[in-house]
């Protein structure tokens, strides 16, 4: 079978992402990666919780005084919505609608860029206040945790943008369907991590 075989909506398999051996491998592989990423984030989360509001210097900065909920709320809404748009993309993939996949994945990228912009604004704002990476144990733990998540967002944006450019005119086939599916799983995982960040860092931070 040719990897670039053309399909019609009717001949397109319902589970195009796992229809081939390569697709199955990608599917299991991305999940095992996400499981290992869970452990990575657990370590930076645990470090943050252990060192929150601690540090030999910079004790004038506390989570309660620093974090602002409106910004965290905006970021949460952007990322949560981008999770829904990538679900829409996967829905269109099932119906072999290449244009739908491209459109909604592009929406995901735009929302992700909005999120990233707000995060950069937030970090720059903190550094201007004097709350830099080396300020205290608290600041190092905070920037490492939220920065690791931000790095994941950057990688996800580059990944999805690359997929969109490479597959803009190719249409959907069994070669690129697993790629889109893996990228969408990764993007959902970014949202899963953010749910804990906005709860543990921002909401519980404001509570003191």
């Amino acid at each position, binding site marked *: *079978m040719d990897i670039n075989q053309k399909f019609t909506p*009717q001949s397109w398999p319902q589970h195009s992402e796992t229809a081939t051996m390569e697709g199955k491998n990608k599917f299991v592989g991305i999940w095992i990666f996400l499981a290992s990423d*869970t452990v990575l984030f657990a370590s930076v989360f645990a470090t943050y919780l252990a060192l929150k509001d601690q540090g030999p210097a910079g004790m004038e900065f506390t989570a309660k005084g620093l974090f602002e909920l409106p910004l965290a709320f905006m970021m949460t809404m952007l990322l949560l919505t981008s999770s829904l748009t990538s679900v829409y993309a996967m829905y269109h993939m099932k119906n072999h609608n290449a244009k739908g996949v491209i459109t909604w994945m592009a929406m995901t990228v735009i929302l992700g860029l909005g999120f990233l912009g707000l995060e950069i604004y937030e970090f720059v704002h903190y550094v201007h206040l004097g709350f830099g990476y080396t300020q205290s144990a608290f600041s190092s733990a905070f920037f490492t945790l939220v920065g690791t998540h931000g790095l994941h967002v950057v990688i996800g944006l580059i990944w999805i943008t690359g997929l969109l450019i490479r597959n803009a005119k190719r249409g959907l086939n069994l070669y690129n369907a697993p790629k889109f599916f893996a990228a969408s799983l990764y993007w959902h995982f970014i949202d899963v991590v953010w749910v804990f960040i*906005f709860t543990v860092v921002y909401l*519980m931070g404001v509570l003191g």
Partner: protein
Amino acid sequence: MAHGTHFETRSQAQYEYDRAQNAKKMRKQVTQFAIMILLTFVAFAAVIADFAPNFIKPVILLLAGVQVVQQLYAFMHLDEKDAPHNGVIQFFIWGGGFIAFTFFVAFLTIIWW
């Protein structure tokens, strides 16, 4: 790609049935999304409303837990039990979750300042 891979073109009836099922699933996912947004609002509102922190903290952690399970099962398709290697995937992701839990216990009890 395996050379033996071959796909039957679906009958018109099967095709229309699958499309209807896909649309149904998508509507369910939108409902789940609405619930997630609602839970997020409740979590932020609870903090802004300034209840006792010892009461709010477990509640918002619980809300986060619910949202994560929604993401995993509704958005990331863990609910599809017939997906290939579903058992392997469940084993790894919940195993990762368990190791994550031990990290929290260890770091919060061992590290102090």
